[in-house]
């Protein structure tokens, strides 16, 4: 009988964990972000180019934002490599903001720095 009890407990805990993980997994597509593309401008405070995910931290009038770039290959193919941008550079980001307004995170489709466009997702770029 103890066995049945343990089984029930294990099943309950595992089911909870799976559900928890599933709600989180929804994050990994782009359905966590707005459908619509928007633009924002900021000053670069941090640049990370490398695995698992290249990103920028920028200062905006709205406070600090995280900018997720493409994956390492997409980021390199976009021409965004070490040396093309520096902390302190102004950047124009076109991309999808997080649906939750409190999450200061934008998924960049394109970044423009010093007049150069770096397009991480050319096929997703929506022109106004």
């Amino acid at each position: 009988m103890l066995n049945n009890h343990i089984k029930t407990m294990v099943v309950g805990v595992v089911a909870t964990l799976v559900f928890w993980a599933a709600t989180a997994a929804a994050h990994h597509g782009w359905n966590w972000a707005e459908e619509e593309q928007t633009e924002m401008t900021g000053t670069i405070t941090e640049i990370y180019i490398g695995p698992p995910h290249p990103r920028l931290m920028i200062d905006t009038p709205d406070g600090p934002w995280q900018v997720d770039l493409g994956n390492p290959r997409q980021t390199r193919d976009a021409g965004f490599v070490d040396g093309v941008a520096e902390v302190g550079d102004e950047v124009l980001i076109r991309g999808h903001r997080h649906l939750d307004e409190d999450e200061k995170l934008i998924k960049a489709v394109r970044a423009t720095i010093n007049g150069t466009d770096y397009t991480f997702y050319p096929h997703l770029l929506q022109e106004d």
Partner: protein
Amino acid sequence: MLSALLLSVGDTALASFMRQSAIAYPIVSSAHIIGLGFLIGAIALLDLRILGMVQRAHIVDLARLCSRFAAIGLCLAFVSGVMLFSVQPTTYLNNSAFLLKIALIGIGLMNVAIVHRLPQWSTLLETGAISPVLRVTAFTSIMIWLATIVAGRWIAFV
């Protein structure tokens, strides 16, 4: 002191290789998953056998084999994990899911250390007799390691 040491992992040649190579990260990441497969697979099998939810296997053989497999998996996961960590130590040390995962691994390893010192564990290895205390530690073990996986996966979503 400790955090300075951990941060300096990011300044090693290995870390810059991990950041720059196109294939190193995916390969080491795969090694980490293989390590987890060995570790969690072996642990789950033995824990479920001790809990009576798996009944076919011979417990003495299984206990010895699974302990060894789990140890191999742990070594692989640890080495690959340090390499993955080296890519951006600051980020990971500021990631609450990462810190939780490390704490869970610490608790899991303490559980291992305790179990292996229990006279009941020696008895199990000699006679196959499963005492109630081992059921408690087996239940604790499987919960901790499953939680470790969830916390680890959560690192990307903090």
